[in-house]
């Protein structure tokens, strides 16, 4: 009786063509899932090589030139081809229509085109790696990148340029869908907080991405045609590049963390079986982060030669952007109060996220505080800080989300005990990898160092040991999630007893998500009611 539904979006059609030409948002989510997973492990290989090299103070594993390519390829791959697309393009694609009671995104073919653009951009970057790699760091600072580096800068930059269009189109698609395709009765303040987060992220996609595209285009023009834009020897300004680059790349950090925060709200609510405390404050804090996040880029440039007054203003604004994040953490914690909490693997990731994101956020205050930033800028303190946000925050939430919605995506549930162990391994391995780097940074070890003074070795060995544990934690889910595709227990429509609209349709859902479009009569997370009291199916469809 408890078998999978007879027909669903995965078995309506088979064959490679049915996937490559699909316009179903759920299948496109799978295309993204496969591609970002490939990029994640590709970037992970470089992380592994970095940590092996740094086991000893001498640069004895590879040449300095090669090491510089390792950290560049690690950063480029992880930032542009994993972290930025992962949560929005995989979970966002799958969930936005399901959560708002729509049959697909507003522009299904554009959605497929976005994936193709992403893949084409990715192929350029992989081609650059195959041709010998690039050594500028993922930040492409000029004039090193535009004049001095003799590696494959142009090819890499073209790849990122192309991929940017994928982000823009995805953001556009989400914004239109959320505005126009919500089910009847699903007002803005009844939306799940994940939708608010994706909406805020989409704003950044649309407003920020064109700037990085133009900036990288200018780097390419200076490199290929010698136009004087950033190189002072040709009348350009190298600091101008940093302004343009960080105008996008700081908000890009929020592209990585906002959807993760959205996932976090969903997980906390579902496993505490309780409405998220301070819903409106959590929702608006997402928008506040998206808006203020555009005004803090100068905190990457406190020692770069900008004026003292610019530094002070950016310091002040950077402190302000910390407030909405603090509000979220307090509200998530308060949500647990008087909840009915269970500790399935997604919740372990969610609790781990709060811990790691809090450390990442608090150390952000050190960096906003300009007097301290001068000392720790461009040291391992920075590396530790942003990995706590991007890996400790974004990837924890992403993995939590993948586990949580895996039954919906596949119809089957992952093996719970091993998943809990994996979550624990990730948490411990992560802290052992990155916490020592805070200390290293305060002691003065600069980032991007192929060789380092011997007194830093103990902390580096700790970090490398942690990285090997972390690698196990990331490989385990890959294995048992694949295993569960065939052998996992059948999940049923709503294995978590959650209230979200995506759980009110079979797992896996039919191609059109809902047989009839429901009328929504209450806010998200109405755990005081039964789902049938919140959603009225069977009414004439409004779609």
């Amino acid at each position, binding site marked *: 009786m408890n078998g999978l539904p007879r027909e669903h979006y995965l078995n309506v059609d088979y064959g490679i063509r049915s996937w490559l030409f699909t316009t179903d948002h759920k299948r496109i989510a799978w295309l993204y899932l496969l591609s970002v997973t490939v990029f994640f492990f590709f970037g992970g290989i470089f992380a592994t090589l970095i940590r092996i090299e740094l086991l000893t103070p001498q640069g004895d594993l590879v040449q*300095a030139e090669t090491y510089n390519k390792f950290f560049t390829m690690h950063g480029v791959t992880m930032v542009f081809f994993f972290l930025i697309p992962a949560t929005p393009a995989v979970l966002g694609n799958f969930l936005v229509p399901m959560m708002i009671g729509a049959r697909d995104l507003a522009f299904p073919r554009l959605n497929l085109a976005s994936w193709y653009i992403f893949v084409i951009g990715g192929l350029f970057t992989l081609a650059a790696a195959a041709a010998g790699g690039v*050594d500028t*760091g993922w930040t492409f600072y000029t*004039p*090193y990148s535009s004049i*001095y580096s003799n590696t494959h800068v142009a090819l890499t930059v073209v790849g990122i340029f192309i991929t940017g269009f994928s982000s823009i189109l995805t953001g556009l698609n989400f914004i239109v869908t959320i505005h126009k395709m919500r089910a009847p009765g699903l007002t803005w303040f009844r939306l799940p907080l994940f939708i608010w987060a994706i909406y805020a992220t989409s704003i950044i996609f649309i407003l920020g991405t064109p700037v990085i595209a133009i900036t990288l285009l200018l780097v390419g023009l200076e490199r290929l045609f010698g136009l004087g834009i950033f*190189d*002072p020897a040709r009348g350009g300004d*190298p*600091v101008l590049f940093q302004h343009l680059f960080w105008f996008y790349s700081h908000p890009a950090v929020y592209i990585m963390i906002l959807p993760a925060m959205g996932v976090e709200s969903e997980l906390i609510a579902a496993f*505490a*079986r*309780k*409405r998220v*405390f*301070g819903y*409106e*404050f959590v929702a608006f804090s997402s928008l506040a982060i998206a808006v203020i996040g555009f005004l803090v880029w100068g905190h990457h440039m406190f*020692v*770069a030669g900008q004026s*003292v007054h610019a*530094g*002070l203003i950016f310091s002040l604004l950077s*402190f*302000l952007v*910390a*407030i909405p994040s*603090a*509000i979220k953490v307090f*509200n998530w*914690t*308060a949500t*647990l*109060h*008087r*909840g*009915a*909490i269970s500790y399935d693997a997604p919740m372990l990731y969610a*609790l781990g996220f*709060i*811990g790691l994101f*809090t450390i990442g956020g*608090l*150390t952000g*205050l050190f960096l*906003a*505080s300009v*007097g*301290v*930033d*001068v*000392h720790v*800028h*461009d040291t391992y303190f920075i590396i530790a800080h942003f990995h706590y946000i991007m890996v400790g925050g974004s990837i924890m939430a992403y993995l939590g989300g993948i586990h949580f919605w895996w039954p919906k995506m596949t119809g089957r549930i992952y093996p719970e005990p091993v998943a809990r162990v994996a979550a624990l391994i990730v948490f411990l391995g992560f802290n052992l990898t990155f916490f020592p780097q805070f200390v290293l940074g305060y*002691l003065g070890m*600069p980032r*991007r*160092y*192929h060789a380092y003074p011997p007194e830093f070795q103990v902390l580096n060995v700790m970090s490398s040991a942690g990285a090997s544990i972390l690698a196990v934690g990331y490989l385990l889910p890959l294995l048992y999630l694949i295993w569960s595709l065939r052998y996992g227990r059948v999940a049923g429509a709503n294995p978590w007893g959650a209230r979200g609209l995506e759980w009110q349709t079979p797992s896996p859902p039919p191609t059109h998500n809902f047989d009839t479009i429901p009328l929504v009569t209450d806010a998200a997370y109405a*755990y005081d009611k039964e789902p049938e009291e919140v959603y009225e199916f069977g009414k004439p469809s409004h779609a």
Partner: protein
Amino acid sequence: MAPRVDALFYFLIAVSLFFGLLIAVLIVYFAVKYRRRPGRERGALIEANIPLEIFWTAVPLGLTMVMFVWGATIFFDESEPPVGSIDVAVVGRQWMWKIQHPEGRREIDELHVPVGRPVKLTMISEDVIHDFFVPEFRIKKDVLPGRYTTAWFQATKAGEYRVFCSQYCGAQHSGMLARVVAMEPADYQQWLGGGLTGTPAEGGRNLFQRLGCATCHKSDGTGQGPSLVGLFGKTVKLEGGKTVVADAAYIRESILDPRAKVVAGYKPIMPLFKGLVSEEGILQIIAFIQSLGGEESAAAR
């Protein structure tokens, strides 16, 4: 400066520990107390609590403003070299530091300084962006091509201190190391006496003659170019009505690209010296012009 940075650092650690532990303790406490069990299958229905939201918005806001003002004060003092600093010129290039003292000694990848006197670094790069970072002094500043940046420090104890390049600059980035050697004033005076090669101002005067600058920039003001006597730090009127302070950056620009800002009453006839004089040479010419008098307090920025 280091003790002041550390004091703020410890304050930040204290605040972080407080909030980190607060959140951790609350989560563990709630997680245990409110675990799901038979008879407790659903969370309680709790309405929003506006005063609580305002409270935990206002408290972090207040604390961060303390951090902001504290950090800003340190930054302000870090950015303003004290009057009477030793003015040392630093030129960075892939992958070395070239240093010149006002008394004339030059060194590579080493910077000798006396204990107890502020040292001001005027820095420029010949190629890509570098960064002069002395962890023990808690100072760091990017060294840019085409533009001067400054930093200052005051060593309090004799000894050797590591200097790292902390802005990625290419293959041997991690090998671009130097050291600050802080010496007792007497030792420093003795060190200064060895290996003198003429002061930067003398070097600048030689260049001034050799490059033919003196032909037009006559000291009595009768030449085709303006006199440079007493120029340094003064405000200069330009063609077109604007004004500019004659600091190091302006003098450098006027040597490399004289037509960018022409002094009122003069014709743009000076040839471009781009490529004809090195960054170190320009720093020497600036030292020479500085030695001709001017507003001492408006030091090169």
